């Protein structure tokens, strides 16, 4: 039988951190979902990310920064998962067909086309867009995370939105905009 008991103040801190993780979990899964386009992969990524976060919990000095810190861990874990497992590419038509009804029900049905269009965006456009709009990352932060130049990120964000404009019948700019990506890595 277990006989000893860990230090209580440490337990309280661990409890607080555990609660913080749980409270942010829906945001993390949502973020991972838009990166992975698959609910079960998103759950796996978040599970791994939470384990990493738990191990590194002492590195988090400011609770207010927790969300951003955790989103970054989720993004890195997602990238790592693809490097490690070389996941089979998600078949987008399958994803959209499978998720259609669910996506339509998840809030406003009017957003179904937009959600499907976001799912169809290439990874290099979807990822910075999700990081910016959902994650609240600045352009500079996205550039640092994705190992790109800031102009390259601006171009990708522009192109992502430009493609989504078509959903609303708005005029789409040609992709021949000034290309600051020329100097991008």
């Amino acid at each position, binding site marked *: 039988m277990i006989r000893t008991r860990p230090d209580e103040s440490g337990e309280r801190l661990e409890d607080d951190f555990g609660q913080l993780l749980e409270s942010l979990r829906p945001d993390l899964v949502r973020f991972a979902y*838009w990166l992975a386009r698959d609910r079960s992969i998103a759950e796996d990524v978040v599970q791994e990310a939470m384990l990493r976060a738990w191990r590194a919990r002492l590195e988090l000095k400011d609770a207010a920064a927790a969300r951003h810190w955790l989103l970054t861990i989720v993004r890195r874990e997602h990238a790592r998962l693809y490097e490690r497992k070389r996941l089979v590419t998600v078949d987008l038509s399958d994803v959209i067909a499978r998720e259609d009804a669910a996506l*339509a*029900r998840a809030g406003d049905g009017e957003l179904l086309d937009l959600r499907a269009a976001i799912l169809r965006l290439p990874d290099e456009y979807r990822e910075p867009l999700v990081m910016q*709009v959902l994650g609240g990352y600045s352009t500079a932060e996205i550039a640092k995370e994705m190992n790109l130049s800031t102009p390259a990120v601006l171009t990708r964000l522009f192109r992502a939105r430009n493609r989504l404009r078509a959903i609303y019948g708005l005029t789409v700019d040609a992709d021949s905009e000034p290309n600051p990506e020329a100097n991008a890595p």
Partner: protein
Amino acid sequence: MNCNEVHLAIGAEPAATSPDLEAHLRECAACAEYRREMLELDAQIHRALKIDLSAVGENVPHADAARSESSARPAVRLISSTPSPLLEKSSWAASLKRQWALAASVLFAIGVALVLWAALPGHTLAADVVQHVIAEPLPADEKPLQPEALAAVLQNAHLRLDPIGGDVLFAQTCFFRGRLVPHFVVRSGGAAVTVLVLSRESVSAPVHFDESGYSGVLFPNPGHGSIAVLSRAQVDSEQEARHILSALHAQPEA
């Protein structure tokens, strides 16, 4: 800034602003309109991304079914524009009565739910355990791990397990209900038996469960939470739990 540069800046960050950008927008109606559209689009993108995850990945009724169900209902409800005072009073009384009836029904339902909840201690915990185990399938080859792998997982939780016989098929630290918990699988008498050490989940007495093809027990570890022991095969989970607890020891933290 020229129009191309402004489009790029707004398309990348619709809410961003700068003196140069604002100066251009004051002079260029087309770019000002472009920004208005992009801000609206961004609000829509934000709404689209804020998806309700509970709906994703579930089997939901097809939209056509929902439409046909709603079409069976009357599209509009006819209301007299000048209701008689008598009708108004009786409607009010009926409405009040309905509200009381609704409140009583809600209270009754809450009462029933509380009684059921109290009568089934640990049920939710058991369901969570089973759900977690289903989400962590065993490797297909079921090759035994080195005993050191289990020792390392238990060491993370400041625990040690004396030899209990049987191969270790899986050992991992998992995140469960906001805590890190050791999760391992041993082969016992030919059956794979899964164990979760739940030092922060207490049960007052053994709670047996049978869910989603798994049967097992939440077994109390007085003063130190509980352990969950479960298997798909027919095993005496309570006996397994006692056996494992007798071999499980705390290690002082370094």
